[in-house]
């Protein structure tokens, strides 16, 4: 904590989100709602096959259709057919095939784009898709990752000569020695199925080439307007100062809008070429095949321990599905979990390796948690399997191996230094809320009576890393961007405040939370603060929103910018009151001479003085504002204990979450109501991966889960009322003591659920269940285990 935060009237208050009235009553500006005079509506001719050579494109029928202005293929675009960028070449010898905005000669996944149609109305643009006739010469689909790596496998990119994108290894300690010293070795293969983020608002982009300074204005349903601006400039060659990106109201992202998409490139280059606005809005059907997928990994996990349950080492071998092309950080996603497979546990050695593989499927990239849910799943699942193997309660095994609260800061086997944590406290509170002993007793009763509905208890004691930073660490990882964040705070002449942030919310409630921070620093009411975001013209510097970074990094910039404002205001106040600045105290927005309560002035009054500039200290520039760009010292490490009671109907295989308790430690909370909301949504999303969701392809590379009737997302009726609580162990790497909460629920819940399903069925011989644990999968798993038991 720094000296300027004298009171915490708003930090910590569960304020209702100030943005919600507008959002809930439809007073919103979604990209698709933006009306531009003379706009051309774009639709895209997408490949219906997974892999094929394009032998001909006949667009004459479409061009002759009413209201159609133009149809472009790769050949028509020529030089303008910019490449979709990838900014994370994770190894020196990574294979990075070109990803043209319009496919050149070959399509490589269902949904790949062959042509763009422009028409004066959306319906005509949709109709005209049927007028573009593409002939394909089918090539073999490449779906299975292991088959793709085999000798002689058909190639996704023939010019690459291989389907292997990269392979890398991170040995930490001597795993072979650790394994040799162990009494027990347990190994499992876990599958992280492909996930489809499915935000409520699909993607959309609108481009106007008629900016008042001659710039191209891009409205996009994106999480990353600043990143998008830079990368669109690099990709298209249009100078960055001629590109303005606005992320208006954005309806959810979950990582799927942390991207530079071909549709954004096409809308930009076509608007620039034709001198007319161009707009594209994704259909839900397109979203399933054209918006990047998440996860998609095979995890071979091996843990070595003593028979008393002391961990010796961990070995993780990943095979990661890149999909058909590399997008913004596709290769790096599996590596974001690289440092976290050891979780909260102490061990001597850890060996990590990962091989990225091309397949003829939709590209993968960030999906809520990005790498950390996968690593948490692997360690928390294998801990349960180890506990079963040595006959120990899974909680007891965790207690024996976790970092105790006295041991922080603790440098893990993977090399990260966890600053703070208190796993004992979070776990104790969770057990109390859960009724652990009674639940175990009920489980025993049901097992003994052979109840059709069996009960399992799933445990997940997780940690994760928030706020990708500092920038030099990202550089060392070959990530082509920084990890800093920017904030400018201006106190306007009449005392109202503009807070300009480089973070870019898409549903998280930043406007409220940021106002709470600034309110306390500046001593002004929350309602006097306007948060400005998501527009590169109004908020020129920023690294946007992903990886739970907005508070973990952006919050620091807000604090520092506010402190700069107060420092300057204090000098002006002291000057005008003819006092020594050191004799002033700043309380509730007022500067007071210590010991002389009659002599005081407000920050609002100082702002007016700074505006008139009639009486400022010599050499001081007029106006009252402060700007800060903060590159944090390190990650922050939220943690928590999640407990799930799962009922499994052994006749139908249906698993139901009966009770869910979590105690999260996200450090100091700015707004506990927003924290709780993030945790709720995150848990639901993690349960989605555990029990419901998963992109399924057939052998020909067709996506079978291509609608929301087949790709099932759980809704409120499918979930119990979550019981949430928190402990507060302030982060020492963040001046406010905050960590991050955007992904915690998703990271923690998936292994808790599957551990619960397996625990319910372990007495039947079940030792794992593939995700999603659908009724049919569970039913077959039980049947297989039972037939194995009888044989």
């Amino acid at each position, binding site marked *: 904590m720094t000296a300027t935060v004298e009171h915490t009237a708003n930090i910590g208050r569960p304020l209702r989100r100030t943005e919600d009235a507008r959002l809930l009553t439809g007073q919103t500006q979604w990209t698709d709602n933006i009306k531009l005079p003379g706009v051309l509506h774009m639709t895209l001719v997408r490949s219906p096959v997974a892999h094929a050579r394009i032998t001909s494109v006949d667009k004459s029928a479409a061009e002759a259709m009413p209201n159609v202005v133009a149809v472009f293929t790769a050949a028509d675009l020529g030089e303008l057919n910019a490449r979709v960028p990838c900014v994370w070449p994770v190894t020196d010898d990574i294979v990075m095939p070109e990803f043209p905005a319009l496919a050149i000669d070959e399509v490589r996944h269902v949904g790949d784009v062959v042509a763009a149609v422009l028409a004066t109305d959306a319906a005509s643009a949709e109709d005209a898709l049927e007028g573009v006739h593409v002939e394909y010469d089918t090539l073999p689909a490449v779906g299975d990752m292991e088959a793709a790596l085999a000798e002689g496998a058909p190639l996704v990119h023939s010019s690459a000569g291989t389907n292997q994108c990269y392979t890398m290894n991170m040995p930490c300690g001597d795993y072979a020695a650790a394994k040799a010293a162990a009494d027990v070795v347990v190994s499992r293969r876990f599958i992280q199925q492909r996930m489809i983020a499915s935000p409520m608002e699909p993607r959309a982009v609108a481009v106007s080439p008629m900016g008042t300074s001659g710039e191209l204005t891009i409205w996009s349903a994106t999480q990353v307007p600043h990143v998008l601006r830079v990368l669109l400039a690099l990709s298209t060659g249009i100078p960055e100062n001629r590109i303005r990106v606005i992320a208006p109201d954005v309806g959810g992202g979950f990582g799927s809008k942390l991207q530079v998409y071909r549709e954004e490139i096409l809308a930009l280059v076509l608007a620039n070429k034709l001198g007319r606005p161009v707009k594209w809005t994704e259909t839900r059907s397109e979203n399933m095949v054209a918006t990047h997928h998440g996860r998609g990994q095979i995890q071979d996990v091996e843990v070595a321990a003593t028979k008393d349950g002391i961990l010796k080492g961990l070995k993780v071998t990943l095979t990661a599905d890149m999909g058909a092309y590399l997008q913004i950080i596709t290769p790096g996603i599996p590596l974001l979990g690289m440092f976290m497979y050891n979780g909260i546990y102490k061990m001597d050695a850890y060996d990590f390796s990962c091989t990225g593989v091309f397949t003829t499927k939709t590209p993968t990239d960030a999906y809520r948690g990005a790498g950390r849910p996968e690593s948490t799943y692997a360690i928390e699942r294998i801990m349960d399997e180890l506990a079963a193997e040595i006959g120990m309660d899974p909680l007891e095994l965790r207690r024996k191996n976790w970092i105790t609260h006295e041991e922080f800061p603790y440098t893990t086997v993977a090399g990260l230094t966890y600053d703070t944590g208190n796993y004992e406290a979070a776990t104790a509170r969770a057990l109390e809320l859960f009724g652990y002993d009674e639940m175990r007793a009920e489980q025993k009763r049901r097992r003994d009576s052979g109840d059709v509905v069996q009960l399992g208890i799933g445990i997940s004691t997780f940690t994760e890393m928030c706020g990708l930073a500092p920038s030099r660490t990202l550089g060392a990882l070959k990530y082509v961007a920084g990890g800093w964040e920017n904030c400018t705070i201006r106190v306007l002449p009449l005392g109202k405040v503009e807070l300009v942030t480089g973070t870019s919310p898409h549903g998280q409630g930043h406007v409220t939370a940021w106002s709470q921070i600034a309110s306390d620093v500046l001593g002004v009411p929350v309602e006097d603060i306007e948060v400005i975001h998501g527009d590169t013209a109004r908020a020129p510097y920023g690294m946007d929103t992903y990886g739970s970074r907005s508070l973990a990094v952006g919050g620091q910039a807000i604090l520092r910018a506010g402190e700069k404002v107060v420092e300057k205001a204090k000098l002006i106040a002291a000057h005008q009151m003819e006092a020594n600045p050191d004799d002033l105290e700043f309380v509730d927005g007022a500067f007071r001479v210590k010991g002389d309560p009659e002599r005081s002035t407000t920050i609002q009054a100082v702002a007016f003085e700074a505006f008139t500039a009639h009486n400022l200290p010599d050499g001081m520039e007029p106006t009252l504002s402060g700007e800060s760009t903060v590159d944090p010292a390190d990650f922050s490490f939220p943690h928590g204990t999640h407990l799930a009671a799962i009922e499994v109907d052994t006749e139908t295989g249906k698993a139901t979450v009966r009770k869910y308790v979590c105690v999260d430690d996200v450090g100091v909370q700015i707004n506990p109501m927003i924290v709780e909301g993030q945790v709720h949504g995150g848990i639901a999303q993690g349960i989605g991966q555990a029990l419901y969701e998963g992109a399924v392809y057939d052998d020909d590379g067709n996506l079978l889960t291509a609608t929301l009737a087949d790709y099932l997302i759980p809704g409120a009726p499918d979930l119990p009322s979550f019981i949430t609580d928190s402990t507060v162990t302030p982060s020492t790497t963040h001046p406010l003591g905050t960590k991050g909460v955007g992904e915690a629920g998703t990271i923690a819940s998936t292994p808790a659920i599957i551990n619960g399903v397996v625990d319910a069925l372990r007495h039947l011989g079940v030792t794992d269940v593939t995700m999603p644990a659908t*009724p049919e999968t569970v039913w077959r798993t039980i049947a297989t285990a039972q037939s194995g038991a009888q044989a």
Partner: protein
Amino acid sequence: MIPATFDYVRPDSLADAVSALSGGGEDAKVLAGGQSLMPMLRVRLSAPTLLVDCSRLSELRGISDDGDAIVIGAATPHHDVMHDPLVMAHAPLVARTTAMVADPATRHRGTFGGSLAHADPAGDLPTVSLVLGAQMVLAGPDGRRTVGASDFFVDYFTTALEPDEILVSVRIPKLGVGWGYDYQKFHRTAQAWAIVGVAAAVRRENGTIAEARVGLTNMAASPGRAAATEAALVGAAATDDGIAAAAAHAADGTNPTSDLHAKADFRQHLARVLTGRAVRVATGV
């Protein structure tokens, strides 16, 4: 997505609706609540040239008592059906099952007759209408005719309705005293279609089952009866064992589809399990 172009009319009377429909030829479609048709139009799986909107025809709405039966107007929204006192009193299986159809928003728009005429093999209400011996009243250019549920459902998304006919109402016989009911819907999320569903109606006399009707959802192209189970139930003891023995035959003779949500053998297994559960509830065991 945006549907392909179509013409749209909203007639003021059933007669006008029938004549609009017959004038529209093979590619004309009736629009009621739109909860099934509109999604198909939007993904362009269906591209009719004319939509005849019957959602506001008062002749097609409402529920009445017709002595030994109740009559449900085809365009009565699900929400109204499941809360109607006549339905709750004389066809509680309809009320119970309708409450499991989709979600509240869909139930306010979607109609009872619409879900029958749509004839989705995963639809719940076709099975219930079959089990209850419902009679469908159809209106066409040549007047009205009545078709029993067992003849009404023909194939996937296909009914006995001719292209120029409109489903007007559904007559559901009152079953009288001594009957118990249940519908077991097995699905993965609350709003999802049934992977398998089982409707049971059982009349108990003393300690035995006197009459039993068991209908299966999504075990074939259209709803069917579990004949072997029904036969085994009649005269069986109203006990767990008696019911279990009969339920073991629920999938006899079925050849269900294999899809993303269930392969055929899992569907058959579910049919047996759910039949046991539905009959137990209906029998009060």
